[in-house]
């Protein structure tokens, strides 16, 4: 038994914001109430801390199997725990691709021994994520996947997307798409705009994303399937999602901390600023901030994409896309969204908890009987993020050396404290 005392319980599902204690009994919450006492229970004093449901990251890359020099399930989930995440959804673009049940099972077996947090893998929509034949989606679901995606690339054709959405409908699996018109984006290494022209770097127009978002929404309307737009980065894409929601379509989307914090004007020849989708314009960032506030955006997801230092220490146009993100996600959310006065704290917590849970069709709450996955964080703990201190195997973050106010202080998964600051 673990008794969390004196914390500020923030539970978006029940709109609770109160000074309450939580008594954990193994994998289930036993009791939530004021001034609880339990003889023999270990006590965790959460005075001054927010106690939230466990954070879920809908989008990350753990590189195992296949690219263990960049990250492993062990190191990646340790970084996730340090970021306050209690469950992560690794994308299937490993080597081999997670496109069949035996790969899914091997990932989960590996996780059982090595992972600090829950692993909810995402399966490939097509075999090898090649955009041709449907992968073994139902078998992977039985093995434990929670969604499908060909992330790293878009689901190749409208026809394939239609088949995937038709097929996933009865299974209740969301289809997550990396929206990008490959012909428009071809060769691009950053967002097209004044900055790309100045730097002489090949740009991808914002339309490369929004054209594909629009396609996907049309297919969602055609099939009635569950569409989730990954790492949405542009104003036009957000408008498409907003309109789809207004029309009652089951369409959701996520935004990354780097897209709501930085813009293309921050890009230098430093490859730590290279990711896909690339950083958008100032107008895009403002639109994302608005979407995070007004509910158009359903979740904050990190798109944690570790790359071994040697692979990033190259010319900008030759570097792989991607930045790490677990350990800075909450602090960036607090800095850019809450401390700045743009969002109430409850809304930020929702974007990390019940928001992503709804995308996956599950519940996330703090109540008797609920799973004992909790994230405890401080709103004012002063600290500086140093990439060299990261639990990740990789260091490719644009936020190295940034000072923050607020941080995850304890991460509890299935009743066990897996991280304590």
């Amino acid at each position, binding site marked *: 038994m673990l008794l969390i005392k004196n914390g500020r319980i923030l539970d978006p599902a029940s709109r609770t914001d109160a000074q309450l204690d939580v008594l954990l009994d193994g994998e289930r919450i036993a009791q939530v109430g004021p001034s609880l006492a339990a003889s023999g229970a270990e006590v965790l004093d959460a005075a001054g801390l927010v106690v939230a449901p466990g954070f879920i990251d809908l989008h990350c890359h753990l590189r195992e199997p296949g690219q263990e020099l960049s990250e492993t399930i062990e190191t990646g989930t340790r970084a996730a725990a340090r970021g306050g995440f209690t469950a992560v959804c690794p994308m299937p673009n490993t080597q081999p691709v997670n496109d069949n049940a035996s790969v899914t099972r091997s990932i989960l077996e590996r996780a059982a021994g090595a992972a600090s947090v829950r692993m909810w893998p995402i399966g490939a929509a097509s075999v090898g994520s090649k955009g041709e034949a449907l992968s073994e989606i139902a078998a992977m679901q039985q093995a434990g996947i929670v969604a499908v995606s060909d992330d790293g690339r878009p689901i190749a054709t409208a026809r394939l997307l239609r088949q995937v959405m038709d097929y996933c409908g009865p299974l209740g699996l969301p289809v997550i798409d990396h929206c990008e018109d490959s012909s428009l984006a071809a060769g691009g290494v950053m967002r097209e705009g004044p900055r790309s*022209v100045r730097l002489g770097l090949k740009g991808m127009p914002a339309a490369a994303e929004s054209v594909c978002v629009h396609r996907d929404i049309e297919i969602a309307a055609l099939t009635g399937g569950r569409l989730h737009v990954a790492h949405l980065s542009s104003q036009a894409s957000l408008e498409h999602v907003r309109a789809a929601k207004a029309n009652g379509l089951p369409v959701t989307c996520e935004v990354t901390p780097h897209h709501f914090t930085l813009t293309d004007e921050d890009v230098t020849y430093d490859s730590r600023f290279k990711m896909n989708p690339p950083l958008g314009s100032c107008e895009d960032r403002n639109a994302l901030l608005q979407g995070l506030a007004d509910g158009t955006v359903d979740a904050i997801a990190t798109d944690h994409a570790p790359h071994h230092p040697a692979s990033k220490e190259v010319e900008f146009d030759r570097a792989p896309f991607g930045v790490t993100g677990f350990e800075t996600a909450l602090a960036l959310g607090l800095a850019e969204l809450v401390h700045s006065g743009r969002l109430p704290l409850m809304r930020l917590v929702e974007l990390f908890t019940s928001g992503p849970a709804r995308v996956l069709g599950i519940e996330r709450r703090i109540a008797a009987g609920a799973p004992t996955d909790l994230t405890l964080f401080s709103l004012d703990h002063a600290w500086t993020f140093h990439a060299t201190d990261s639990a990740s195997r990789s260091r490719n973050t644009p936020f190295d050396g940034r000072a923050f106010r607020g941080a995850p202080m304890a991460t509890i998964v299935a009743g066990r404290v897996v991280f304590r600051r």
Partner: protein
Amino acid sequence: MSHRFRHLLGIEPFSAEQITFLLDQSKPFQEFQRHPLKKLATLRGKTVALAFFEPSTRTRISFSTAASRLGADTMNLQAEASSLSKGESLLDTARTLDAMKPDAIVIRHSSSGASDFIAQRLEIPVINAGDGTHEHPTQALLDALTIRDRKGRLDGWNVTILGDILHSRVARSNIHLLSKLGSRTTLCGPPMWLPRELECLAPNVWRVPNIEEALDGADVIIVLRVQQERIHEPALAPEEYILEYQLTPERLRLARSDAVVLHPGPMIRGLEIDPAVADGPQSCVLEQVTNGLAVRMALLFLLLGAAPTEAKDPTHAAY
């Protein structure tokens, strides 16, 4: 002194004063090219590494000759002879060259920002001899020297740049330089290579897609090479380019009668420029080549030689 600088990575970070200073420093080296004995001892004992990761003839020979006329030795790395084909990274190649202790490195590379990347990781001065579609600062300096010689000053001119502006590092460096020195730049070329963002590069820059309109009243015309190897998009048919954008004698008459024509080379006669214009009295192409030597000698002298404030006439220390 604000004239001091460690690297030459681009024109954009330089001030008008620094640019003028560099051009002034080039003056004695221009005259030096006419000496019968073209060898100085100024940089004797110094070594300049020439790292050309992209095919180049004229820029490489120009830097190599500039170094040798100053008495410096050169280390040559050429793309075809380099270890890049064996998979070595740019950083490792640069560090290997650096370990041979050159006093400066001149780098030409197909990636924008490559010289910047190296400058942040090596201790020696880095000179950008062209990085991708970003900048080619010594080309802009030699163009400016040529314009100043022919027209007496660099401010107040109408300069028209013709060609594939989007993919041109020569255009970017010239746009920055001309804007800082007070001239107006008109950009003209096929619309897909003329995005509106170019007007944000610097003050006093305009796009005019129509060539007749763009040439009207021009004092200086810079014709760019059609860089087919750098064009990612489907290429424009050469016939179409000639029809719409070739600088012909008839079109040149729309500019001021005393207008000068520059071309960074290599020229494709009959494509971007009519041979009659290339060889005509308004053409400066061969002066540009000679001025390139002067600018690069001045640059190497400033980066590797004595502090400029102490410098007497650097061309006096002949062998």
